[in-house]
């Protein structure tokens, strides 16, 4: 490798940035997590962690589901896109990014009015007579028509499903982008070689394209999973505040109803650890090509 004349100089802004905005806050989080209000050392913040297992479990499982859905939707889009003309790809990418130009909160508020019981979707279903149809069928199928309770709306808002939807909607572009950029860069000659050696398109995809796109998948998964785990406000707006996620729990300790930055830091710290473990396991799997082919 050629030696850069400037040495490490170009990296200085980045290092300073990281030091101020990543390292210092991290040190503070660790400091807070191990102290109590009086400033003395304590492990009490961690001993309470057991009571939040449910929140941890809920956050990680909902984020995992959201990540899986993003992958299922995002990969095919990225793959199909990469076969289109560069012009088409540019326009499509812009369209995919377009929603991101609108504030996250506004987009989530919009989903609220779409999903509500009296919201856009339910009103639409009602207007096209979907509920009448369902009730008509239900009434005829019911063993005891007298007891049949007609439905007036689908219960969409204030459910875990709505929270997952919010995550998928907000983070999908982060799945598509890295996968797409990896797939477009795959050397065409690889595909030609595969075909020369008699591989049909299915085999080419399975043995060549997919394994080569794995780095993109991995970074996509990371970019969706990590913000999903730590997201807040989504569960408050779409989950009705009754399905609390880690982000909300932490926010509550700093900005919300229960002021306790020490507990908040402890939870953040544990969350970071669990996320890091998850990520390292993932990366480990990503290393072996065999595993990928098995997928």
């Amino acid at each position: 490798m050629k030696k850069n004349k400037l040495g490490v100089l170009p990296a200085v802004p980045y290092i300073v940035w990281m030091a101020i905005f990543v390292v210092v806050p991290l040190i503070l989080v660790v400091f807070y997590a191990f102290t109590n209000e009086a400033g003395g050392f304590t492990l009490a913040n961690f001993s309470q962690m057991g009571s939040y297992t449910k929140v941890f479990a809920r956050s990680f499982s909902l984020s995992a589901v959201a990540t899986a859905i993003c992958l299922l939707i995002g990969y095919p889009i990225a793959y199909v896109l990469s076969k289109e003309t560069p012009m088409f790809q540019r326009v499509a990418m812009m369209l995919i990014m377009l929603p991101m130009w609108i504030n996250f909160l506004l987009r989530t508020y919009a989903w609220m009015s779409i999903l509500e019981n009296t919201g856009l979707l339910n009103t639409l279903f009602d207007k096209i007579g979907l509920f009448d149809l369902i009730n008509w069928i239900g009434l005829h199928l019911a063993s005891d028509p007298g007891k049949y309770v007609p439905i007036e709306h689908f219960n969409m808002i204030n459910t875990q499903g709505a929270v997952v939807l919010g995550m998928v909607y907000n983070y999908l572009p982060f799945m598509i982008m890295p996968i797409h950029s990896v797939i477009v860069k795959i050397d065409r000659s690889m595909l030609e070689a595969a075909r020369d050696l008699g591989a049909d398109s299915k085999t080419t995809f399975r043995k060549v394209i997919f394994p080569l796109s794995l780095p993109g998948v991995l970074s996509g998964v990371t970019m969706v999973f990590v913000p999903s785990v730590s997201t807040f406000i989504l569960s408050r707006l779409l989950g009705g505040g009754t399905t609390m996620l880690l982000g909300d729990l932490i926010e509550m300790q700093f900005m919300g109803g229960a002021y306790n930055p020490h507990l908040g830091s402890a939870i953040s710290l544990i969350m970071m650890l669990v996320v890091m473990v998850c990520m390292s396991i993932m990366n480990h799997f990503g290393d072996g090509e065999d595993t990928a082919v098995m997928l």
Partner: protein
Amino acid sequence: MKKTLVFLTVLLSCALLLTGCGGNDDQEVVNVYNWGENIDESIFDDFEEQTGIKVNYKVYESNEQLYSVLKQGGVNYDVIIPSDYMISRMIEEDMLEKIDMKNVPNLSKIDPQYLNAEFDPAQEYSVPYTWGVVGIIYNSTMVDEPITSWKVMFDEKYAGQILQFDNSRDALATALFTLGYSVNTTDESQLQEAFDLLVEQKDILQSYVMDQIFDKLESGEAAIGAYYAGDALTMMDINPDLRFCVPEEGSNFFIDAMCIPKGAANKANAEAFINFMCETDICLRNMDVTGYATPSAEAYAELDEETRSNEVLFPSKEVLRNCETYINLPTETLELYNQFWTKLKS
């Protein structure tokens, strides 16, 4: 050491925000931090016109959020508008600056019955801005009985239709009123009982809300919700099916007052702003927008008979006698509140 650390983080993380607030250097400013939907924002222009002081305005959702934000430090608000119990907590924790009442001559316009209250007996730290009661707002087309009791908030009949406060003090209060206990109780077993009731309620709740309640009740998305009287009026303007009731078990009577947090950079401007807010016509304009009753005697005198006899805005003496003011709770009880709240929400 710790203080510096705190200051450093907040400073860093809010760097952007702060530069945003700084703006033009020669321009006099006052940074106001208020409840959401709690002011007629057009008065800021009038204030700037009169005094040349520009108003930077931000809102918070609950007293607890305001407390957290101030406690973390690094913010530069000059005027805040907490409620009674939070004011006494802030006074106790030395978070408020004494207001120089010489600079607030309009204090004389405030009805004395709202002055020298329990939370600020010497009237040194606060100037009343609004007052009101908490009650149940319900959609008369979605319930089949007149609502008179807090019990309806815990009634399975309305499962999925109920909205509960998203802050610990008000939420626990609904349970404490239902159980017939004082909202200022420090008795652990009573609080535990109230907490258990809230845990049960969680299954039949539609959601925990603060200002999201406006949309949900106005659109008929929910049938019943507990909230503040002033906001009830705003909602009733939009959806005439909505009704407000102060439950028979009693309710919370509150005064929100303007205060100056410790270390405010523009204290003189803050006092000018507070004084301006007590001008009679400003009180009336604010009242018109927020729906909250003004404590100004002069403004009250200007109101027409219809407004004065509005029971939501100015509840009768009998109703008020049945109401209880929140007072600040001892640290142990506050910690219990925090624990309960975190447990309930998780």
